């Protein structure tokens, strides 16, 4: 009978924990929704990257710059769809919620930045800036959510792998031999720029070593071209023409 009612009487405890239970369930459900959206973003971004490669290897009469612009335009179209998904996530990421869930959306965000920066490179030949990325993730100047510097840099770092693929497959194309040299210098600069940032961003050092490998692959390819060309005392574009005439008549 004289049950010590004063101590945190069970009902009070239940009431208190009822509140926690709801909060934890909410958090988990939100986490699940964000993970799913992030997977969608990853998949669509990968498709954009394939699309860009596909256009850049088309056999066509367009000059290289026109082709690149066409690729960037097509890519931009698809990137809009991804931006829509990222925009729709903003309600789940307001205020404190963003940093609570950042790890769950990181993979998608990085893959998006990789795709976006690839399109940007094709169009402008430069690295997309932090502000430019943040602008694509905004609605009339209001950001969907803060862009973490680490995701920006890690996404960019993946770009060098795609550039390596781009350079290698450009080589057998007319003018591609010059393209390889261009990409080689660009990736060499990326490597240098990122080198100073590795101590600040977790995971960047590992990606930097992939960048290194990619760079060496491009260098080897550029070397192979130089060696072949060296035997003939003619400028590369004349050599290209001779080969083209020989092969396709």
């Amino acid at each position: 009978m004289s049950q010590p009612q004063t101590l945190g009487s069970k009902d009070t405890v239940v009431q208190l924990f009822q509140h926690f239970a709801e909060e934890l369930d909410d958090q988990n459900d939100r986490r699940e929704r964000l993970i799913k959206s992030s997977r969608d973003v990853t998949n669509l971004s990968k498709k954009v990257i394939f699309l860009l490669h596909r256009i850049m290897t088309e056999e066509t009469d367009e000059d290289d710059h026109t082709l690149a612009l066409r690729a960037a335009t097509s890519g931009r179209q698809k990137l809009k769809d991804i931006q829509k998904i990222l925009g729709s996530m903003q309600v789940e990421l307001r205020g404190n919620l963003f940093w609570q869930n950042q790890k769950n959306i990181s993979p998608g965000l990085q893959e998006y930045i990789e795709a976006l920066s690839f399109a940007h490179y094709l169009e402008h030949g430069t690295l997309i800036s932090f502000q430019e990325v943040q602008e694509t993730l905004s609605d009339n100047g209001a950001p969907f959510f803060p862009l973490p510097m680490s995701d920006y840099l890690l996404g960019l770092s993946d770009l060098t792998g795609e550039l390596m693929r781009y350079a290698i497959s450009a080589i057998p194309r007319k003018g591609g031999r010059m393209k390889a040299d261009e990409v080689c210098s660009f990736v060499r600069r990326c490597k240098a720029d990122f080198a100073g940032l590795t101590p600040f961003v977790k995971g960047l050092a590992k990606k930097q070593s992939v960048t290194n490998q990619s760079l060496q692959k491009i260098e080897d390819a550029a070397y192979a071209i130089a060696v072949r060309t060296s035997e003939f005392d003619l400028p590369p574009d004349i050599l290209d023409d001779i080969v083209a005439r020989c092969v396709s008549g």
Partner: protein
Amino acid sequence: MDQHDLDFINSQLEGDIDLREKIKEQVHEFDKKTRTVVGLLNKVHGTTSDKIPSLLDDVRPLLVDCRTITASLAQLVPQNQFWRWKDMWSNSIRAAVFGAALVEYLGTGTLITVVKVNEILGIHDEWKDRLALPAEDYLHGLITLVNELSRLAVNAVTLGNYEEPIRISIFVKDLFAGFSMLNLKNDTLRRRYDSLKYDLKKIEEVVYDVSLRKLVAPPGQRPQPTP
């Protein structure tokens, strides 16, 4: 990257590093304070119930002292970045919650509320986008409380206090009922929650021992726990 961009990136990253260093310093202080609190409270296992109030009087000001830390942290953390940095001090804050909860239990026999913890540690509601006490940390603190209470049930009996295990048993059972309302992920909290069951079992064994040996008076004749 053009130089302007590179400078921007560098300044951002260095700002973060700076901030991390500053928070680390505060956490270092926080740790020191909670270590002292926990050290003092460790004495309950050898202290007879009449000397407990004076022990609590020693601990309370040390807990209140943590307010300078929480204030500094709240000032350091940029708006909305609470979750970005909180892992740095979650061990300290859990220890503080444990300290406050044990003081409350020993003083009043009741479960400390989140509101009361926030009050003791001086955590203001309007800081919530920079510093707050998340459910997770509060719950971790309570689990540590139960771990310690199961030890206390044992040591109280050693000191001849046969009532304490009963009080602890009722308190912990209620608390456990609360915990079992939660759906947990497979994380540390889940694993620690599983371990609660062993504490509960241990406490029950002590209750069993003292009950069967009739070391406690029949309920009607027992003194009421202090409110």
